[in-house]
């Protein structure tokens, strides 16, 4: 697992049924592009988060393929429809096989 990888997500705690809410996500990650040279003059191997997904109660909201051109600490902002109370699940997939997850509950009132 890459060092110090920590996901953050921002989701409102409540919403009206069917409301569209804005979600922000940020994960601390170097996103090593594979094109940079280290102090020893050799290329530093690519090591990035290559996919990010957000689902709500098992249904997909957004599914993103990331390339090395995504900046360090990948940031996404997008909208989701909230049909009922439930849980958002956020998943980041690392080149090294690690999978980072976060969840946020939201209540429809």
């Amino acid at each position: 697992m890459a060092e110090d990888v920590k996901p953050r997500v921002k989701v409102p705690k409540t919403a009206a049924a069917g409301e569209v809410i804005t979600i922000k996500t940020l994960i601390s990650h170097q996103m090593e592009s594979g094109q940079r040279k280290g102090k020893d003059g050799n290329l530093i191997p690519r090591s990035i988060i290559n996919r990010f997904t957000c689902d709500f109660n098992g249904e997909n909201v957004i599914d993103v393929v990331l390339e090395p051109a995504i900046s360090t600490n990948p940031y996404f902002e997008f909208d989701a429809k909230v049909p009922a109370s439930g849980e958002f699940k956020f998943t980041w997939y690392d080149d090294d096989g690690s999978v980072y997850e976060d969840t946020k509950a939201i209540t429809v009132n």
Partner: protein
Amino acid sequence: MIFSRRELLIVGAGASLTMALPIMTHAATSDELIATFTGGAAVAEGGITLTAPEIAENGNTVPVSIDAPGASEVLILATGNPNADVATFKFGPLAGSFVASTRIRLAKTQDVVAIAKMADGSFASAKSTVKVTIGGCGG
């Protein structure tokens, strides 16, 4: 993080580009990536919006957003990067809009392109020129 001057030059030349180095592996060109994405279908200009700054203070962290009403999938390309592909967004059934934002690396002044695959199978595109100032003294 401490960079040597040499590393800084490399980073400065583009977060991911080394113009002085021969590119060992074949990097797909924008045209090839678009052809793969569209399967060779015609791409209409307009119908979607790509928002990017006119001037990016540093190519390492450039905010971009797309608004592609009716799209199922959007491909973002940085045509002047060593590898032109940046990201592909797929909107799921619970997407609340066709808007998404992220931050990207641009190696130099160039066109950023978004190609959207619409629900009816057609394709739309938008383009935005971003001037990258290789700036930021010192550090």
